[in-house]
């Protein structure tokens, strides 16, 4: 199995910071709404620092390490998930259409995700994030070539 591009950790970290900021905003709203309760302040601060450390330092690393893929001759293996580990196998000939997508954070680090759509229900959309843009495009073209070959 191949790991994702190491830059993907940074993407996950930025996302962690964003969710932490959201948490912070909620906490501030909560404090303002409930009035000045200085007694709870040390606890709240500790919680914020702890959650910040988990969201930006611990989780991104673990999430990154949970991802792996194997670009086979006629199928793609994708495994992911920290708690529940999920391993999906997508045969190329089952792919209906495919995208290379880039979010704003990913674009900043030159990364992209490959999205495979099949005709199924449960695993109909298989996403492989954290790829170098050139690699993602190459993989897309390889799968497209495979489908074309199959069709002819």
């Amino acid at each position: 199995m191949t790991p994702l591009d190491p830059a993907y950790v940074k993407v996950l970290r930025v996302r962690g910071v964003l969710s932490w900021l959201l948490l912070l905003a909620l906490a501030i709203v909560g404090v303002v709404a409930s009035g000045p309760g200085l007694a709870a302040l040390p606890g709240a601060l500790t919680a914020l620092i702890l959650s910040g450390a988990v969201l930006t330092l611990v989780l991104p690393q673990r999430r990154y390490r949970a991802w792996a893929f194997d670009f086979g001759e006629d199928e793609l293996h994708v495994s992911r998930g920290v708690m529940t580990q999920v391993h999906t196998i997508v045969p190329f000939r089952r792919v209906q259409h495919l995208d290379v997508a880039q979010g704003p954070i990913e674009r900043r680090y030159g990364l992209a995700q490959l999205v495979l759509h099949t005709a199924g229900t449960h695993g109909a959309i298989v996403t492989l994030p954290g790829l170098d843009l050139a690699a993602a495009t190459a993989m897309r073209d390889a799968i497209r070539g495979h489908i074309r070959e199959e069709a002819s």
Partner: protein
Amino acid sequence: MSEEPGRRLHPATLVTGFLGALPQTILAIPGVLAFGRDFNLSRILYLAAGIAALTALLSLLRWLRFTYRLGEDALLIESGVLGRRRRVIPFDRIQDVSLEAGPLHRLLGVVRVKVETGGGGGDEGVLDSLGRGEAQRIRAVVRGGGEEQVEAQDTLPLFHMTLRRVLLFGLYNFSLVYLAAIAGLGRFFDDLGPGARAWLERKFDESALAGTDFADGAIVAATIVVVLLLGVVAGVVRTLLREYRFTLKESAGGLVRSRGLLTLSQAAVPLRRVQLGVIDTGWIRERRRWWGLSAQTVSAEGGKAGNQVLAPFAREHELAPLLAILKLPPPSPSGFTAVPKRGLARSGVHLAAVALLVAGPALVEPRLWFALLVWPALLGFAALQRRRHRWRLDGGHLFVRRGLLTRLTYIVPLAKIQTVTLSRAPLQRWLGLATLIVDTAGASAIGGPHLRNLGLEDARALATVLSDGAAGRG
């Protein structure tokens, strides 16, 4: 084919449209009346006549403004009284043309033509109503465009249900869902007012049982019996309405099914669209050796899920030829492997959470101690389910069995598998288990030929074999 002019629906549509819209408009009468103060009969009659006239005018306008046309390669429908809508349905996108006729339609000799494309949203192209000849013409033209359309032929049916069979099936279709509906009806009788209730109570007082503990027990017992009986009757009636004269015929590209008592429905199942077969039975039905067969189908664009019943209630020897047509092997009961027992440990942990929620009050109120029995009961159920969750790999097919009360057997051709997913939650990792999710085209979001809590080694080996089949390597 030359471009033909737009056609109107059958004039009988005026009648069906009018009568169809009437119930809704009548419901509006009380609302309108609420504005006035005096409720004399003539006023109500005038109002009703006015509303009826308005409804009639509307259905006339709708009929005048609705035209359809069979173009070169598409069906064109123009509709809308005020806003116009022009819909184009290309022939090669049409999955099926089904004909339906409700009681009123049959009286007037017309049918409702439904053009299904497999896209989202139910009413993609409904022509309600057309004469029988015109409906057949549209069907023929549309089917000329597709390569795999199915036409009913006057052949001997592959499967047919006699009235006796349908009624028997109805007995098995007794369901608690109807009981809920009936309970609602019971409240309606309560609402009839104190008069009805008092009459019942007086009748009861006259009997010798009145005033004893036995009387209360008798009322409860009688109620239970009545409700159960009503449940049975409701099941039979529902089944009769749906499955009456169930007939399955073979045709050029597949199978054609027709059924229904008041509303006759006809549907085609193109064989090329069939993904897998499901044999269903129940815990009593299996003992009495009754089975049902349905096929999971997919539309042209690969979007719409569909489970087509091919034989709802049949004997094994009746299913065999149907399975042969679907090119599916019969699932002989031997050779199945059950998922390992240690999966029960996981179910136990999950169910404990459920049981705690249910039995929570028992911790506070000692008299509710029996609620604590929920956990062993659920676990016992899970144990029985585990024993029935079995699988078999046979040549090019995966067989998966599941269910205790409703028992399903999936027959999945490996070549029809879309993706294979192995999922391991923390507890599963600890117990050396995995869930294997076998995705197929047209599968519904719930259920499917998945294997829960399979041994990890088996799961890995199976995933390899299944993905080989899906990729066409096997």
